[in-house]
């Protein structure tokens, strides 16, 4: 009995420690964001003294910076990419999972093999390509490369393959075209997988830094991570302002995760196959 208690104690201690490692920086960030610049490099003890707290940094984020513009940009790009990813990855996943056409395996293999190329290697060719199309520093340029991702197509294909073939055949006999089967039968029964794709895409798109920083030149095309990133320069950084900005950026993903976390798990389970 005592052994069991000890085991539990160790278990919770390890959990607490791990939580502290992950949550600690966020707490530190929060306290910096409500502090004055002069206190940031003082003793950490100063940070947690209520008399030193201020919400001015959060106000400054809105007033001093083009935060609203960046927010609009981020929301626009994220929403568009999430919708297109859900739609196109489901469509492509359906085609690869359910339609039989010459070269299907080859094309899918080709798509999958592109995953082995590190994304960073493709940055320069992608930029040159966008430049040739005169899409640098445009919303189209920001959005196009991530309209759909191979990983999402793969996830949807795996999910659709678990749907019994009888369902598709029953729909064919009922009079459905293949697009209607996709739209009216497969999509409605695939909510866990679709939610997973939407959440992954939202998170990835919202936090994306590298591509937007390369493709956008003027600050009116910045997304939130890029804009806030520019607050930190080589010689001087307003740390409380920076932390307030980044904390605000984190909030939407945090909310989405908290509300939809069961879909994260379901999405992962679904890709493993479940009828």
């Amino acid at each position: 009995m005592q052994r069991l208690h000890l085991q539990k104690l160790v278990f919770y201690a390890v959990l607490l420690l791990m939580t502290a490692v992950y949550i600690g920086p966020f707490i530190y960030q929060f306290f910096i964001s409500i502090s004055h610049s002069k206190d940031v490099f003082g003793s950490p003890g100063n940070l947690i003294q209520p008399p030193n707290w201020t919400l001015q940094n959060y106000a400054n984020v809105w007033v001093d910076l083009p935060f609203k513009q960046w927010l609009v940009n981020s929301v626009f790009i994220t929403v568009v990419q999430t919708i297109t990813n859900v739609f196109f990855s489901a469509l492509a996943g359906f085609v690869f999972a359910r339609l039989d056409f010459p070269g299907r395996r080859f094309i899918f293999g080709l798509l999958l093999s592109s995953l082995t190329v590190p994304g960073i290697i493709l940055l320069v060719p992608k930029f040159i390509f966008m430049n040739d199309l005169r899409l640098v520093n445009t919303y189209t340029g920001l959005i196009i490369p991530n309209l759909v991702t191979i990983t999402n197509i793969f996830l949807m294909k795996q999910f659709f393959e678990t749907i019994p073939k009888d369902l598709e055949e029953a729909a064919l006999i009922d009079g459905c075209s293949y697009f209607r089967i996709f739209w009216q039968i497969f999509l409605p029964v695939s909510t866990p997988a679709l939610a997973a794709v939407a959440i992954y895409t939202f998170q990835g798109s919202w936090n994306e830094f590298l591509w937007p920083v390369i493709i956008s030149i003027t600050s009116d095309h910045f997304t939130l991570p890029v804009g806030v990133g520019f607050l930190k320069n080589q010689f001087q950084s307003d740390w409380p302002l920076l932390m307030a900005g980044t904390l605000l950026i984190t909030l939407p993903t945090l909310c989405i995760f908290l509300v939809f976390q069961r879909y994260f798990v379901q999405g992962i389970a679904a890709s493993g196959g479940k009828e």
Partner: protein
Amino acid sequence: MATVEIRHLVKQYPGAAKPTIPDANLTIEDRSFVVLVGPSGCGKSTLLRMIAGLEAISGGDLLIDGQRINDLSPKDRDIAMVFQNYALYPHMSVYENMAFGLKLRKFPKAEIDQRVRAAADILGMNELLERKPKAMSGGQRQRVAIGRAIVREPKVFLFDEPLSNLDAKLRVQMRVEIKRLHQRLKATMVYVTHDQVEAMTMGDKIVVMKAGIIQQVDSPMSLYHNPANLFVAGFIGSPSMNFSRGQLVSENGALRFTNQTFNFQLPPNQADSLKSQVGKEVIFGFRPESMYDTRFPSGKTLTDPQRITIDVTEPIGSETFVYFTLDGQTGCMRVPSDIRYQPDEVITVGFDTGRLYFFDPQTELRLG
């Protein structure tokens, strides 16, 4: 309602060494209930799926009411199909599941409603119309699947092993319901099963298949009493027919079947038809209920008495299956439940002379 004609139908899968169905010919009469039966992999489901349009036809013609439908898509063939796994749309209610096909065919709302409610009435599902499939039992789901077919009022109903996923009791119940439905709708129905009891009890006509080849097409009782070959004889009937290899010999002008276990004289009419087989090896077949203990009156004309040694008995209540050693294998005899035997007991039996079957060991065709 409709007649389905299958003429020299071929199914060859790409890359397969030989065709799954080499040359199928069959006419399914209007308003008949035809059962395709055979062991796994015999091509019965493939044939059904070709009628449905779910499998491409490699050769031959498929006609419904005289119209060639080889190249029509499933939705244009005016057929409805009930699947083994029900294949209900999980996100739709029972009502929506049944109405879906009609909606796609742009039927007026009032007619859809009337048809769905009429089908629900027939199947006793009025209370369940708002339920989702996941909130229903297997039997109820299969009823919805049948309802989905009924509302369409198709030319032909196709059933692909619809009762295989149900438990034994429910299966018997649904068997009766489907048969009753056929009597009520008077529709052409094609039913696939691997269960010969299901085939016997449901079909007006049974099509026995093996390795893609139709072995025999006949009514259930004709199949049972007049099997065309060894396979049909062994497949139809439960427990199945007993077989014993031996020789036909001529003795004092009479024909006798003889081997290590049996030696009896054939009745004159059968002896006539088997004259040409004298001296040749044949396979003798007899059903478990055509064998009688000579101690009890059977009311049948029996062959000469034969001795067998009891191995195991299996009382099932209404009757008893008695197993005995036959050519190193196990033979079965069906006796009334009040007759009791002990293991290793030696008894004398005779065969009903009107139910003796002989097959050619090479061609496996019935000789007489």
